[in-house]
């Protein structure tokens, strides 16, 4: 085929992420086309508006990353995105992609509009073995032990729980706590069914109690970015961090070994359930025939087993197809694969809630985590209100 | 002044001109005919509308009402450049970034006059104004007088029918002013163009003008040659405006005195024998008597009527000596020769020259 330049925009700019993207690019270039990298730093919040302006402004890129879920819904409805059903059928995506909810999120009116590339799960507690050694306590096995060990850590001058200042981190931590403390059903009732009475109920009150603990433990982690928070754990300045599996990439870049230097507790060691959010690539509708063809090639390449392995190993996430061999996977990743195999999965909040509701949630939790004078009760009231009006 | 003249006889002719700025009416129904080759001075105090009128003639302001003719052509809606006028401004308005030569030739270059012709005209103007050595300089390197000359030159090169001057000398100091005044007069004598000259300096007006139009609040009060304006001012305003120091005004009434008519103020009588229009004066009328400071003699036993007065202030001005006198409740200024000095408080005798005095009606303020 003719070499076609395809511009791909994404917000993967941290160390592990960039290495992972390089794998995608390499695979795509190998098909004889050319991957033009359009990285936009500063997380999805910064990058997404730019991507959307370009698509709606009539200057679309060849492909773009979105969190997979509802972020591109309207673009699809407006007819701006390319229908990938032909590629999906030819490649039998329906059969190979697991869990199937991933593909469901890409499907609108029966047509497939995106190519999922990985599964990210949020429900991880990353612990620094060195920090606990310094504090003279054993590395905790679950959330409750972790909370119990906080005073010892503090005494040793270590921040028990690192939480970065970006709003989505606090929100994510809360969602994780909810699954761990209240369980899968409550989680689904609140976020899937938008049941405001449950959201105002005693189960969620417990979650807020836990969040209150987390808030207390996070005092003093004066960082913004998630990977800076991870870095606190890596360097032993913080005891632990609730963060998705992408944090693993950072440990890898820092040459730390799971089990030896750090410990990972899926589901906070309480409920071993993980969410299956992730990233997907969307393909704007292009007028240029050549580019449209290249888009199909790219979509195919993204789900190619080899690409999946190479990419996900670097990214620290799980592949979207079950039929790949992940012998090289590390400890934590294997734990994740196990849980996935058991089917202990939930959908990610990105898939369940609109960006608008997500944003409102973020506003609430970033305030809650930063403002100790806000009581859990007040926060829960506001939370219930958001759920009541969520869509 | 011939208000009935046909348009074609006049060089510039203004018919029923009115101009308003928003709701403020600055010129009101103004009529003015300026003869070919005439030097007309517009004189008036600040804000009376002189510049506004000049700008109307130049086409820099649009008239609200009325028409303007130049050389018989209706130019009311013409562009300034098509009116055959040149204009000289108070602040010189030279283009600072251009040399004198470029300043002079700018208008010609804009009009795409051939270079040879431009050179010829610039050379001629430079010669007339004696600014040949300055042609390569920029305005900032010129003195005030030189700048003003260049400004005049700019109108000169354009070979215009009518020169408009807007207070061209008032930014200069007294000495330079009197020098350039003479030059402008000489220029007019040699060019014989029509010139319209705005000023609020009466010396300029008196020395330069063929005719003076005295304006007040947008209305022409009198249009006459300087001598008439000076000696027979049409109304109180003109009389007070012209002459420095100002004419002395005494308020009183006319009375019958012997066989003639006399003026009476504060219990003192002044015989009006010799007044040029004494036959029109009726006793009993309330009037204002105006006498110029140089028409009062001090201690010069003229044989006529004499009045007692006391010297209040003396202002020696070199060639002249100005006395401020107290006389029957009035303060009066009198001009005497600079060599004659008086001490403050001295008693003197005054005699009035009524042949050149003016009598105004107290109500209409018109000269009788």
């Amino acid at each position: 085929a003719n070499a076609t330049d395809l511009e791909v925009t994404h917000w993967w700019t941290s160390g592990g992420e960039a290495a992972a993207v390089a794998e995608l690019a390499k695979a795509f270039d190998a098909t004889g086309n050319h991957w033009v990298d359009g990285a936009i730093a500063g997380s999805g919040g910064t990058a997404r508006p730019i991507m959307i302006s370009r698509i709606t402004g009539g200057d679309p890129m060849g492909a773009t990353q979105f969190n997979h879920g509802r972020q591109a819904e309207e673009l699809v409805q407006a007819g701006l995105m390319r229908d990938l059903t032909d590629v999906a059928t030819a490649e039998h995506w329906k059969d190979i992609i697991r869990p199937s909810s991933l593909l469901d999120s890409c499907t609108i009116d029966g047509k497939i509009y995106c190519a999922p590339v990985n599964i990210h799960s949020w429900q991880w507690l990353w612990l620094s073995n060195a920090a606990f050694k310094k504090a003279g306590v054993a590395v905790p096995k679950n959330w409750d032990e972790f909370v119990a060990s906080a005073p010892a850590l503090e005494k040793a001058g270590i921040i028990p729980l690192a939480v970065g200042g970006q709003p989505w981190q606090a929100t994510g931590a809360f969602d994780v706590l909810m699954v761990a403390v209240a369980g899968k059903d409550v989680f689904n009732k609140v976020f899937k069914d938008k049941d405001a009475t449950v959201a105002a109920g005693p189960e969620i009150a417990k979650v807020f109690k836990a969040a209150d603990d987390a808030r207390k433990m996070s005092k003093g982690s004066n960082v913004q970015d998630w990977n800076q928070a991870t870095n606190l754990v890596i360097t032993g300045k913080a005891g632990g961090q609730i963060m998705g599996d992408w944090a693993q990439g950072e440990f890898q870049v820092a040459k730390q070994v799971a089990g030896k230097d750090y410990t990972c507790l899926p589901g906070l060691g309480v409920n071993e359930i993980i969410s299956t959010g992730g990233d997907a690539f969307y393909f704007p509708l292009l007028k240029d025939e050549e580019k449209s063809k290249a888009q199909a090639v790219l979509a195919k390449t993204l789900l190619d087993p080899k690409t999946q392995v190479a990419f996900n190993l670097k990214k620290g996430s799980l592949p979207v197809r079950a039929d790949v061999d992940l012998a090289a996977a590390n400890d934590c990743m294997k734990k994740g694969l196990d849980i996935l195999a058991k089917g202990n999965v939930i959908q990610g909040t990105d898939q369940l809630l609109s960006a608008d509701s997500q944003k409102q949630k973020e506003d609430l939790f970033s305030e809650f985590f930063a403002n100790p004078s806000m009581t859990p009760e007040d926060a829960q009231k506001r939370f219930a209100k958001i759920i009541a009006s969520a869509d | 002044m011939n208000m009935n003249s046909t348009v074609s006889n006049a060089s510039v002719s203004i018919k029923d001109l009115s101009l308003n700025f928003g709701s403020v009416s600055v010129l009101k129904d103004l009529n003015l005919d300026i003869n070919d080759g005439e030097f007309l001075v517009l004189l008036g105090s600040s804000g009376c509308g002189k510049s506004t009128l000049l700008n109307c003639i130049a086409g820099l302001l649009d008239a609200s009402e009325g028409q303007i003719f130049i050389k018989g052509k209706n130019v009311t809606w013409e562009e300034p450049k098509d009116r055959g006028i040149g204009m000289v401004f108070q602040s010189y308005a030279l283009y600072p970034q251009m040399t004198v030569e470029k300043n002079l030739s700018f208008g010609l270059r804009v009009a795409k006059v051939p270079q040879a012709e431009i050179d010829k005209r610039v050379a001629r103007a430079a010669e007339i104004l004696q600014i040949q050595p300055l042609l390569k300089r920029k305005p900032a390197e010129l003195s005030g007088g030189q700048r003003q000359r260049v400004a005049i030159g700019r109108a000169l090169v354009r070979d215009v029918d009518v020169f408009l001057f807007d207070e061209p000398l008032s930014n200069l100091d007294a000495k330079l002013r009197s020098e350039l005044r003479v030059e402008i007069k000489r220029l007019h004598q040699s060019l014989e163009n029509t010139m319209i000259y705005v000023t609020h300096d009466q010396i300029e007006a008196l020395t330069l003008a063929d005719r003076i139009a005295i304006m007040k609040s947008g209305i022409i009060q009198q249009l006459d040659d300087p001598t008439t304006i000076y000696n027979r001012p049409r109304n109180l305003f003109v009389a007070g405006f012209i002459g420095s120091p100002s004419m002395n005004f005494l308020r009183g009434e006319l009375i019958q005195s012997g066989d003639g008519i006399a003026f009476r103020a504060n219990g003192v009588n002044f015989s009006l024998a010799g007044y040029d229009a004494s036959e029109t004066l009726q006793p009993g009328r309330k009037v204002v008597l105006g006498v110029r400071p140089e028409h009062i003699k001090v201690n010069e036993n003229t044989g006529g009527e004499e009045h007692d007065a006391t010297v209040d202030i003396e202002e020696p001005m070199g060639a002249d000596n100005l006395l401020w006198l107290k006389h029957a409740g009035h303060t009066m200024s009198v001009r005497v020769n600079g060599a004659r000095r008086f001490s403050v408080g001295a008693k003197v005798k005054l005699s009035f020259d009524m042949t050149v005095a003016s009598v105004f009606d107290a109500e209409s303020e018109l000269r009788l």
Partner: protein
Amino acid sequence: MTGQAQAGRPNKLLRNLNAKIASIPMILTALVIFVGGTFWTVFYSFTNSKLLPRLSFVGIDQYERLWAAPRWVTAIENLALYGILSLIFSLVIGFLLAALMDQKIRFENTFRTIFLYPFALSFIVTGLVWQWILNPEFGVQSVVRSLGWTSFTFNPLYTPEIVIYGILIAALWQGTGLVMCLMLAGLRGIDEDIWKAARVDGIPMWKTYLLIVIPMMRPVFITTIVIIASGIVKVYDLVVAQTSGGPGISSEVPAKYVYDYMFQAQNLGQGFAASTMMLVTVAIIIVPWAYLEFGGGRKRG
């Protein structure tokens, strides 16, 4: 006669034709972008547009939600506090510096350059640098602590109650140089004789400034206030670069709310409602000024 005059009267539209043609970009910008864009925005603030503008009207729902949102209220409060403080401090510092610079000092050029150079830097850069200087771990706080005052605490960016002051410090650093310049220009425009008159009258320097010079500089102050105020309403980059609105929502500002809801939350309607409220705020500032500046009874010259 009159008829003849009117006959020569050219079409009013064609007079100054060149000026009108040359003003087309301005007219287009004013009408299409500013007026058109504003009306468009206000119009769509009554819809529930999400990612893309859509004509589904929901009345004033967006506004109700807006004013019920704690983040918006915080943002407005922050803007008011930041606005007032930054206006006062900019004027005071700018004026003081200008007054000092006006004392026929040596090295005037050097000082002026020093005060003005931050203005050349973007808010992004300003935010980054000050974020760093104010960082408790290695910024001012840690330096002072390492000098022996171990209990010294100066950590505005991570203390919700005072975070706005941390932003203020950076904003003042960036902006006061320009204010100083404006004030200096104003001071230099004051008639030298006024100073002499005041000295002969025996009026102390500070009183001359306070009671005579400052009142005379009214136009300069108005221009300056307009410039500062327009900057305050728009403040966005600085907050994003320095705190991203944090900790929590304690340094949120309206412009950021607009941006976040329009683009991150993909709720254009909410963003438009918020920007409409900002426009109303602007109008409240602008209208009195425009009245003072261009309105009735303004003296010429």
